[in-house]
């Protein structure tokens, strides 16, 4: 940036400006401290409620017990986490490939989009839990079953966002490309795909969370059929055995995974867009 930034402290500030600086500093600290404090308070309250009401551990375990279980059952739980993660990432990968691939196909012609977009919508709006029995009949392989399920849940936001992005290119830039004799491929590669990037990344952020949900839900409805024992299976199993601490531990692992996926994709989005897109720019002034 070429803008001149006055060094903090060297310029005497008027009261209004000083107030603004103070407020900004407070906000920066509060952004982290407040949610953390509320979280700690909630956990403490959870613990107190267990103690005050003498709730048995198989109904609601104390937080400390859950953490202990996370440690003692680590081998079991993290093994299952890996199984769930594998399905999640594979389905996210397929959702990206399928979503972007279909979007590019749709962008080739209005007719293709008009013809096939309704199918994508139908696939999206039909609850996956209701469709799963069918998948269960037609697909034998357990992994394929779960993947298909998670994919159906995750691909739509990528498809719809990328389609929107590919179609929202500045008309003048399209004219410029035509003027310079650009081929369809050049127009796609040098213009439409980069222009769709922010939209795609927005869809990816949603799809990341959805593929985890898809993976867990798929495993739930698929049932604990032995070999594939992801975190969902652990939860069901723990439920049957009234092993509430392990159930909670598994639950915490799942939501923690979701948070990590979201943060990672947010970071990716920021890194890709930081040099040019409005959404990634730090507010100045």
């Amino acid at each position: 940036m070429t803008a001149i930034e006055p060094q903090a402290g060297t310029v005497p500030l008027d009261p209004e400006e000083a107030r603004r600086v103070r407020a900004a500093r407070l906000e920066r600290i509060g952004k982290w401290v407040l949610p953390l404090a509320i979280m700690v308070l909630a956990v403490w309250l959870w613990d107190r409620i267990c103690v005050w009401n003498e709730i048995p551990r198989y109904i609601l375990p104390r937080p400390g017990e859950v953490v202990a279980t996370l440690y003692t059952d680590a081998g079991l739980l993290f093994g299952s986490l890996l199984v769930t993660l594998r399905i999640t990432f594979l389905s996210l990968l397929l959702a990206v490939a399928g979503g972007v691939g279909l979007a590019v196909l749709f962008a080739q012609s209005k007719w293709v989009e008009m013809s096939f977009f309704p199918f994508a919508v139908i696939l999206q709006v039909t609850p996956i839990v209701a469709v799963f029995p069918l998948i269960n009949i037609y697909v034998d392989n357990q992994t394929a079953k779960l993947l298909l399920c998670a994919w159906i849940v995750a691909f739509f936001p990528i498809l719809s966002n990328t389609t929107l992005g590919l179609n929202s290119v500045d008309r003048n830039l399209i004219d410029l490309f035509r003027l310079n004799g650009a081929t369809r491929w050049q127009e796609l590669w040098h213009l439409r795909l980069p222009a769709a990037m922010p939209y795609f990344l927005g869809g990816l952020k949603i799809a990341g969370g959805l593929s985890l949900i898809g993976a867990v839900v798929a495993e739930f409805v698929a049932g604990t059929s032995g070999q594939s024992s992801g975190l969902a299976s652990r939860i069901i199993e723990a439920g049957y055995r009234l092993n509430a601490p392990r159930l909670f531990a598994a639950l915490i692992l799942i939501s923690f995974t979701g948070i990590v996926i979201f943060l990672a994709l947010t970071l990716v989005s920021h890194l890709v867009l930081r040099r040019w897109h409005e959404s990634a720019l730090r507010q100045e002034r």
Partner: protein
Amino acid sequence: MLQEMRAVASEASGGDQKSLLTLRDVGKSFSNGVTALRNVDLTIGQGDFVSLLGPSGCGKSTALRIIAGLSTPTTGMLDWHGGQGRSDIGFVFQEPTLLPWASVFDNVWLPLRLRGVSREKATPAIREMIDRVHLSGFEDAMPRELSGGMKMRVSIARGLVTKPRLLLMDEPFAALDEITRFKLNNDLLELWQDERFTVVFVTHSVFESVFLSNRIVVMAARPGRVFREISVDAPYPRDEAFRTSPDYATLCRETSQVLGEAITLGGGAHDGH
């Protein structure tokens, strides 16, 4: 009267001058019944700086798009003298229309890149063009880091990097503040004199058209058509001294009068636009 003006114009621009392009009876109608252009006959000579001046709706942008080949005329035809290839045309839009994800350098590279010229091979031409529009040192800047005037400079560099014979400009400086606009006008004239390309410049500013062009084509609306041609005899180079000269003021007044007649004729006097 009209013929008379034409004769004067072609004489002023030099009898032996070769023409680059002729529009013969060009018309454009849209499916909604609007006639954007009717019976446009216009010859653009090599090295001309022609301004298309007129109120909104007079079809000046449509004419530019037809010349660029972005739009096909409903009637009439375009006649390129000595053949025409796509690479003969550079286009500068009203907005800078840069790729926001690409640096200044890569934006200027774009027309060459689309022609299959590698970055290494294109580098001398790109650097020279960036230098010509006074943006040396900003090669790696992203468009969002530039001011409106600088973005427009990039856009001009991009339009000229292929060394086109004809540069089409569609109200390129309309959105800029006056100081920036004056500066860009001066720099554009300098470029035009050095490189000897032809310019067709769409504007609704009398002052801009008089300052820049050797020919002004005043257009009227509803339907869009050529109303009259004015030749601006003031010698080049034109600089700030010309901008403040009595000659310039007189030319502006005369052109304003012609534009006023064109607006009255087109019924645009009551139009808010």
